[in-house]
């Protein structure tokens, strides 16, 4: 018979306000095997932990039940405390009476009743707990960063600086991401390229960093410290090692009418192209959707002009398999499509542009060489209307996004200010719901736009934009003035909401990393573990976790790198002992478990068993590799003969919990 101690936590008033903690500890004291039961204000505090340790030593407890918050929060804390007092950490059970009880009940009676039941279930389980010992697994000392924007670059640089090798996988032909398309950065107005491109070069020159551009992650296997990742290196039809980036081919290519994605389709490029002058790696790529040679087999101009013989029309996609100890997701964001917002006439007039397109129109390397001209007729615009929150903060979220995209207030202030500075003859209107500019020197920046640059900030939304006789008739409401406004604008700029890159969702599935309803990666704890995914060994960097500006992205990128470095500095990792185990005598070798195992942890062997009358027979039985098994439990459900069981969560333990709750 176990000797069990029960420790009920108040969590300040988090639990105690809706659960009668005294009644819970009294009720659990009467459970079989419980030799001690108490409650305390903060069980996770030093005093609380001391109390548990003292009682283990004093009463010789063989099992401990802590009724507190979710095990995701403090299971590790209490296990560690008990281990210090000499108890096997797997003899500790947590009854979650906060997230699954006190926080969701309003009525103290029903909250208390439920807390008692959850406590009883935990006590019943501890009776069947057995001491478990964790094994160890080695750590592959190389990191993978998925996404080569400013987030990925910074993370890779910081990891490489600590001496660990890093691979950056980037789906585009060059690293740099969205920041390469931005003209100037707020609130200092320094040129984005001038602060980004040196970092891109640093990454390329760092001997610990290996850039896999034009590549995508295809499959991820394994677990923390031991990931095996398949990477597809897409055929760029140019030998990256030979290409010098001279650009001759991109001048001679006869296919001139390819929309240039770097300038968001505002101008064209050739079928063979280098995305922009400062691209890293500075190597050309052939766009197979437009290349006449690849489509019809007739042309070959680029091959003829290339002096180093880098063009290779026969190149095929290659699959690369590599081992990593840690993976960082840095997949970034995209502005949303304007399809559902045609009241702003985006599809009807080329003079209605998104903010990112406006960046290109203001950029010296953009389609207009940095002179702001209307895309429709190339004339200088005199009246500009900026519309904020297009698709952000939408109720219900069907048309747009429920969240605030966070960066738009600042970049719109920047656009408005730059326009007024370069072209003092312009009238600039900004329509807003709220102006949100927290951040160092941010509000001062916005006020400068209003006070020094005379930008007209109008609280209210634009209802409609009507293209008429070369003008854009803007109908809007001025909520503070209480009037309808009709503005004849020359250009309208839409601050489109941001959403996670489309590649994030399939990647999350491969990584078994969780996402929220908006497809942003979820962090392990919103406050205390913001750069870690709940999946061990997977870290988050930049806007894939939520909308962020550049300073915040760089800060988070560094934080993610620090976590990776911490992991890679270890030689061995403690494994989770709560893994599946197959009872060979009951296993009939049906393969049901192998089929459901997402980690490939189950193999089959032919094993010799003793039969009746001194005979032996060979039987096929399942074997679990405890270093690969993640303890998900899928096999225990699939096994028809009940041979599979999960240590620490055995069928008997689960049934005991159910019985305790239902009896």
């Amino acid at each position, binding site marked *: 018979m176990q000797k069990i101690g029960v420790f009920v936590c108040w969590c300040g008033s988090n639990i105690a306000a809706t659960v009668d903690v005294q009644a819970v500890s009294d009720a659990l004291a009467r459970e079989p095997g419980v030799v001690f039961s108490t409650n305390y204000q903060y069980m996770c505090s030093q005093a609380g932990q001391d109390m548990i340790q003292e009682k283990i030593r004093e009463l010789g407890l063989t099992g401990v039940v802590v009724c507190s918050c979710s095990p995701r929060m403090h299971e590790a804390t209490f296990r560690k405390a008990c281990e210090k007092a000499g108890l096997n950490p797997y003899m500790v059970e947590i009854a979650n009476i906060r997230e699954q009880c006190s926080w969701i009940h309003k009525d103290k009676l029903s909250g208390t009743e439920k807390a008692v039941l959850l406590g009883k279930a935990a006590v019943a389980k501890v009776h069947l707990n057995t001491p478990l010992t964790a094994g160890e697994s080695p750590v592959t000392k190389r990191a993978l960063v998925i996404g080569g924007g400013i987030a990925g670059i910074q993370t890779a640089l910081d990891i490489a600086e600590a001496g660990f090798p890093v691979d950056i996988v980037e789906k585009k032909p060059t690293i740099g991401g969205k920041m390469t398309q931005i003209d100037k950065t707020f609130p200092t107005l320094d040129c984005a390229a001038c602060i980004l491109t040196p970092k891109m070069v640093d990454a390329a020159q760092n001997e610990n960093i290996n850039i896999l551009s034009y590549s995508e992650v295809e499959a991820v296997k394994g677990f923390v410290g031991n990931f095996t990742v398949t990477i597809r290196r897409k055929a760029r039809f140019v030998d990256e090692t030979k290409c010098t980036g001279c650009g001759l081919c991109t001048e001679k290519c006869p296919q001139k009418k390819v929309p240039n994605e770097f300038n968001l389709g505002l101008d064209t490029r050739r079928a063979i192209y280098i995305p922009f002058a400062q691209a890293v790696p500075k190597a050309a790529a052939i766009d197979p959707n437009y290349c006449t040679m690849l489509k019809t087999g007739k042309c070959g101009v680029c091959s003829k002009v290339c002096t180093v013989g880098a063009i290779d029309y026969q190149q095929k996609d290659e699959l690369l398999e590599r081992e990593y100890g840690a993976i960082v997701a840095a997949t970034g964001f995209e502005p949303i499509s304007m399809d*559902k*917002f045609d*009241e702003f006439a985006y599809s*009807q007039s080329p003079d209605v542009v998104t903010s990112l397109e406006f960046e290109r129109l203001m950029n010296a390397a953009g389609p207009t060489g940095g002179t702001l001209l209307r895309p429709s007729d190339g004339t200088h615009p005199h009246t500009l209307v900026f519309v904020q929150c297009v698709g952000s903060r939408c109720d219900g979220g069907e048309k747009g996004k429920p969240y605030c995209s966070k960066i738009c207030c600042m970049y719109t202030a920047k656009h408005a200010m730059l326009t007024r500075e370069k072209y003092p003859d312009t009238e600039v209107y900004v329509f807003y719901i709220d102006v949100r500019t927290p951040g160092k020197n941010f509000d001062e920046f916005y006020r400068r736009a209003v006070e020094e640059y005379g930008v007209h900030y109008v609280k209210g939304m634009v209802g*409609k934009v*009507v*293209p*008429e*006789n070369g003008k854009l008739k803007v109908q809007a409401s001025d909520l503070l003035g209480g009037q309808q406004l009709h503005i004849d604008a020359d250009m309208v700029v839409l601050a489109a909401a941001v959403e996670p890159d489309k590649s994030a969702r399939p990647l999350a599935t491969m990584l078994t990393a969780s996402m929220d309803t908006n497809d942003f990666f979820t962090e392990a704890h919103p406050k205390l573990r913001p750069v870690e995914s709940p999946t061990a060994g997977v870290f988050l960097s930049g806007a894939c976790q939520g909308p962020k500006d550049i300073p915040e992205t760089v800060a988070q990128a560094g934080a993610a790198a620090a976590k990776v470095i911490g992991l890679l500095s270890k030689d061995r990792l403690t494994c989770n002992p709560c893994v599946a185990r197959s009872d060979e005598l009951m296993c009939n070798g049906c393969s049901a478990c192998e089929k459901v195992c997402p980690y490939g942890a189950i193999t089959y062997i032919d094993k010799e068993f003793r039969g009746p009358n001194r005979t032996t027979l060979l039987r096929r039985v399942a074997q679990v590799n405890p270093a690969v098994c993640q303890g998900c439990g899928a096999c225990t459900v699939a096994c028809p003969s009940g041979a599979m069981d999960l240590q620490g969560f055995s069928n008997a333990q689960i049934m005991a919990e159910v019985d305790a709750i239902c009896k």
Partner: protein
Amino acid sequence: MTYSYFPGCTLKTKGRDLDIWGRAAMEALGVELRELPQWQCCGAVYPQAKDEIAVRLSAVRALASAGELGTDLVTLCSACHHVIKRVNRDMRTDETIRSRANTYLQLETPYAGETKVLHYLEVLRDQVGFDQLQKRVVKPLTGRKIGAYYGCLLLRPSGEMEFDDPENPSILEDFLRAIGAEPVVYAMRNECCGGYTTLENKPYAVKQAGRVLENAASCGAEELITACPLCLYNLQVNGGGKLPVRYFTELLAEALGVKEGAV
């Protein structure tokens, strides 16, 4: 598929084309529209006064009558649809209106908003399906650039009409694609045509209708379709004749090959 059908006064007089081609097309699609027996005017304008009960009564009669037949009620005229759908919601959600209307009408079974009100376009989209409609088209309107004119009543207020986004609608464009035409999106497609002001402020109605047609034409539309008799009248009479304006049902009948031979 069988529905009760409320044509409304205008569809029997000025707006006969909307009704005739609408029925012919549905017959061709195998959908039965049964005209409600002894229907009356819908009330014409949805009353803004919360305590105005008399104007709501005729709509309630139509709704209750469809309810007795156990069928959903289909309307075609934008104005009728607007009034009937909103009164139906009042009967379902407003206790005072419900009890006063029932006290007055003394129906055999009291009516509490049970009937489902569908616009003809909703039947096409959600019951027939635009993909199915596309398969039934025998004379696709290939190459015709057509602008959809929604007007103000059809989709608004969106919380009550619940059938498309009033600021950026797509149902008529999807319909045009289904019958093989090329839809032209233009900004004025969901603005008021000015028709309501035609008696008291004719210059405004003329200006507004002109803007609609100008804008549609500048975006490349060669003709317009609408579901509203008042819009059609106003755009034709006050719009300056820049573009032909027709009912969407006429084009539907044309595409389905039933325009010839019908009355």
